[in-house]
């Protein structure tokens, strides 16, 4: 029920709606009894309306209707009286309803608070997910960048500034033995061309101390086998040439005489190449040995690893496909 307010009919401006009705009724020369009969109401109800005694009356819905018909009967403005009634007796037309039996309250997903909280939780979850995916992605790209740069960077970083600068030209074809032009940064500044087979000795690691050691020892070494170049320069070149097959910096050269499909994966599971190599093309791939090599037309392709040519004849199957894993050990290609 609405708030029932029992206000005494005071004489003030403007006159209360009940009083207005009473005055109009008296003016029309109508008794309460006559009015009640015309309205099909009980006398007490009409009296209660005139007294504005809401607690003696049924719910507001009915009272409004009674007032409307009463006003019409007396020739008063319905709207005016009703607006006065509303102003005088604040009420809510919605009745408060209750279940007759104890109820089980169902889940309620529609109250504004729960709605807001649910939306917030969903947004938060979406943000967390987004952040997780983003950080994973960033980490992954960093890792790939690191490993691909390793070849370039590590060689430089492992040598002190006074170490010889190595410049390798790797536009090498498989037939002519790869020539590594190395420049010595110190000693006599001699530029010496050596055969790759000799100079590109595979070494697991080369420490700067070793380079220095080699330098110190160099003058004393007398016997250098079958090379036309001077002893000193050979000894100087050896440390200079050795850095190439550094861990993480293995170079796999693939040259195709015929079109061939190839897939090459290095030891870090990084796919270095996948696709078709056109006839006459060459690829120089830098990665970490051992490499996993998968060739579609193996007889039409020749490989060399760190300038050591690889003979893969026995791995070529009847359908010209070859799949193997290679690395270089002690100057020879080793199949796994």
């Amino acid at each position, binding site marked *: *029920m609405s708030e029932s307010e029992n206000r005494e009919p005071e004489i003030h401006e403007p006159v209360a709606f009940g009083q207005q009705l009473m005055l109009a009724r008296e003016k029309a020369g109508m008794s309460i009894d006559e009015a009640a009969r015309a*309205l*099909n*109401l*009980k006398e007490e109800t009409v009296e209660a309306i005139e007294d504005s005694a809401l607690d003696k009356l*049924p*719910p*507001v*819905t*009915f009272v*409004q*209707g*009674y007032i*409307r*018909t009463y006003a019409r009967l007396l020739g008063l403005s319905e709207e005016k009286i009703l607006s006065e009634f509303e102003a005088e007796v604040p009420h809510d*037309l*919605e*009745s408060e*309803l*209750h*279940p*007759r039996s104890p*109820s*089980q*309250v*169902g889940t*309620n*997903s*529609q*109250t*504004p608070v729960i*709605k807001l909280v*649910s*939306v917030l939780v*969903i947004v938060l979850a979406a943000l967390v997910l987004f952040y997780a995916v983003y950080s994973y992605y960033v980490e992954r790209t960093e890792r790939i960048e690191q490993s691909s740069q390793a070849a370039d960077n590590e060689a430089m970083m492992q040598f002190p500034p006074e170490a010889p600068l190595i410049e390798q030209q790797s536009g090498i074809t498989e037939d002519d033995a790869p020539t590594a032009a190395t420049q010595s940064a110190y000693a006599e500044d001699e530029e010496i061309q050596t055969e790759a087979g000799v100079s590109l000795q595979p070494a697991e690691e080369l420490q700067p101390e070793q380079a220095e050691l080699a330098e110190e020892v160099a003058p004393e070494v007398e016997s250098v086998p079958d090379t036309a170049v001077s002893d000193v320069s050979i000894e100087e070149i050896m440390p200079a040439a050795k850095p190439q097959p550094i861990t993480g910096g293995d170079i796999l050269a693939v040259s195709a005489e015929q079109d061939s499909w190839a897939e090459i994966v290095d030891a870090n599971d990084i796919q270095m190449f996948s696709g078709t190599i056109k006839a006459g093309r060459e690829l120089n791939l830098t990665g970490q040995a051992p490499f996993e090599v998968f060739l579609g037309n193996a007889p039409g392709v020749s490989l060399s690893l760190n300038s050591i040519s690889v003979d893969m004849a026995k791995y070529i199957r009847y359908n010209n496909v070859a799949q193997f894993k290679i690395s270089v050990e002690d100057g020879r290609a080793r199949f796994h």
Partner: protein
Amino acid sequence: MFVNRFRGLFSNDLSIDLGTANTLIYARGKGIVLDEPSVVAVRQDRGPGGPKSIEAYGKEAKGMLGRTPQNITAIRPMRDGVIADFNITEKMLQHFIRSVHESQILRPSPRVLICVPCGATQVERRAIRESAAGAGARKVYLIEEPMAAAIGAGMPVDEPRGSMVLDIGGGTSEVAVISLNGIVYAASVRVGGDRFDEAIISYVRRNYGILIGEATAERIKQQIGNAYPGQELLEIEIKGRNLSEGIPRSFSLNSNEILEALQEPLHGIVSAVKTALEQTPPELGADVAERGIVLTGGGALLKDLDRLLMEETGLPVVTAEDPLTCVARGGGRVLELIDKHGGDFLAVE
């Protein structure tokens, strides 16, 4: 299921008064958000059997009623309070539900409460339920129209005390006696605003030999229609086609003529109320006699209808505040109460 619940977070609970004449939608916390005629204009190109498309909904479509070219038909998909054209009703509901949601990205999936006439059969109820589900509702509740009307009018339906409500809609009139949150007696007669219009049309044709359309008849009813002889005589100037000459003619009608024209449908309503009073258990009948009958629905706006019922029954008759929206508002209140007290409350299906 989860997607529906998620979409539900962005949808409002809706109470829909799917009426023959007008569809009203009450959104929880927002009030009445839509009040449109239940009319759909369908365009069918390339002759019968061609592809159909919806030309207009609501007010726009109502303006087309009786004024359409061959390829457009203005349809009222509801007849007598129930679905006459299932697909069109579904499309119309879908359009209305969408238009009361601002978000265009997410398809709304609200919980919907729809009012059905208490005379509706199981088949008709199922049709309404399924058309609402097809229109995107996540959950559909049905409630009988007089119950929603009584709650919307602010009647104390939970008291152990009889309350009688008479809801006069476009297609049907429902009279019910309610006590303790339940319907004790309910009856539905297929007399409503539409029947008033038809009665006016046939009266004018019979007495003037002039044919008028539904829209004109409705305008006459709203402007000078009355249910009880009053002191003042109102007149209206209207135009219609003279049947013998075939030429549009202008003529005037007065309120007494309309009163005469409406006698038959009004008698139908009055006798329904009298039957209800006869059938009501005596204790509840006494309660009704003390407090009176509450009128709701668009028909309650017919001038002096309460007066007619007062004279005919000898009981107090009151017209609810804002009778047109009572059912929709009552439905909205029921949705709140369902959340508060559970679904079995108030005879909701």
